[in-house]
């Protein structure tokens, strides 16, 4: 068994730079025929190994062949004073530009060596309250997270094929336990706040739940005036007198 290790090239430009470096080619005067052969040989090798070739490599192959063809054409007589347009120019510009950012990435890599042992605080104050409230939190969310979340929901539903329209499955028991739960943490609840954002259906449920709890003497409701908000307390929390 042979183990073949192929170097990873980040794209056709990366591959060309590799050839240029390996063969000590003058980047300002690339022997286009030779490098085109190298490039095509590489693609053939990939093909023989049954490795899928990304389309940008094929595009580059055709660009190289086009340049090669132009170079072979007998150069026409140029009028005096005008420069011959080198068919390689655009490619060389692209390679030089790419080289610049490769150089910068060396610089970034050197910086990483400096910050290698630098770790920051893992959790900040704004997160602690949420962790203790049992929400599993993300790191600070971005538009990207938001979009991803929506996409996943939509595609999940599409996979289901169809979806039934469901009625709210909120029951009286839920309303009762919800109220009692809140009162574990709060001394009192405002009825208005409790109902501020829920639908009419659920508002009715809450109202029935409150009546039920008052009947069971678990809850004490207080309203200072006819049109005022109703405040709810646990009877067990009331001062005895």
């Amino acid at each position, binding site marked *: 068994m042979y183990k073949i290790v192929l170097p*990873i090239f980040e794209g056709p430009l990366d591959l060309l730079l590799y050839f240029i470096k390996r063969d000590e080619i003058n980047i300002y005067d690339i022997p286009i025929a030779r490098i085109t052969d190298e490039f095509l040989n590489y693609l053939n090798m990939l093909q023989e190994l049954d490795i899928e070739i990304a389309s940008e490599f094929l595009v580059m192959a055709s660009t190289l062949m086009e340049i090669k063809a132009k170079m072979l054409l007998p150069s026409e007589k140029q009028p005096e004073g005008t420069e011959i347009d080198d068919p390689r120019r655009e490619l060389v510009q692209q390679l030089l530009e790419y080289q610049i950012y490769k150089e910068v990435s060396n610089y970034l*890599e050197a910086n*990483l*060596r400096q910050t*290698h042992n630098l*770790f*920051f*605080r*893992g*959790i900040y*104050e*704004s*997160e*602690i309250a*949420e*962790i*203790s409230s*049992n*929400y*599993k*939190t*993300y*790191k*600070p*969310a*971005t*538009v*990207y*997270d*938001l*979009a*991803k*979340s*929506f*996409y*996943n*929901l*939509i595609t999940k*539903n599409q996979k289901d094929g169809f*979806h039934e*329209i*469901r009625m*709210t*499955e*909120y029951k009286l028991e839920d309303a009762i336990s919800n109220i009692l739960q809140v009162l574990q943490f709060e001394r009192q609840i405002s009825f208005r706040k409790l109902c*501020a*954002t*829920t*639908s*009419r*259906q*659920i508002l009715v449920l809450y109202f029935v739940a409150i009546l039920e709890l008052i009947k069971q003497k678990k809850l004490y409701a207080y309203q200072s005036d006819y049109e005022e908000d109703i405040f709810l307390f646990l009877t067990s929390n009331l001062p005895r007198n």
Partner: protein
Amino acid sequence: MQKVFFNLDRETQKQILETLIFASEQPITLDEIADIIENKLEFSDFPTSNFSIAETIHLGEYLLGLIEEINHDLESSNRPYQIINVANGFTFATKNEFGKILGSLPQFRHKKRFSKAMLETLAIIAYKQPITRPEIEEIRGTNSSDILNVLLERNLIKIVGRKETIGRPFMYATTIEFLKTFGLNNLNELPNLDEIRALVETKNKKEELTLKIDFGEEQQQSSIQ
């Protein structure tokens, strides 16, 4: 390896423990700390002590003792924070009297962290606004009233009217605070479905991607060392 940790001098043990708690992105549990100490760490760089500890000692209790000691050190050196126990794990938090200062500053209240449910609900409202609760629940397939309350409290959504259907449910829409939180100028800047697909779909190729990246990293690592 545990014995090796025990052989470190106590001050170093505390520093390692404090480092783990400081940098961990979730409150770190005693079990996680024990696992790291017993199985994952090399301590050859650190000074050891001759003081030997009875082998029978319980690691969890021992770690708790160290944490207590760290908190004591933090207190006596006037640090304004301490290690607290939350959601079964340990993390740093500012002490109450200083935490109060933070509470009065908006930059420390600006929250960008969301539970999965919150982010889902917010995403639906952002893309489908104005939308009612039953409609949201239909997409999410689950009750969402608590989540809506949290989002209202955080001022990320608002009620913009009622829908004229049965029950006249409230309609929700996102707020300016929402735009600010996500750094958007307006809602048109939200990615559209095709764009999200392009962004997200690379996920499906994840395996391929990891392979590729791992290779690159291998290279990178060898060049760093």
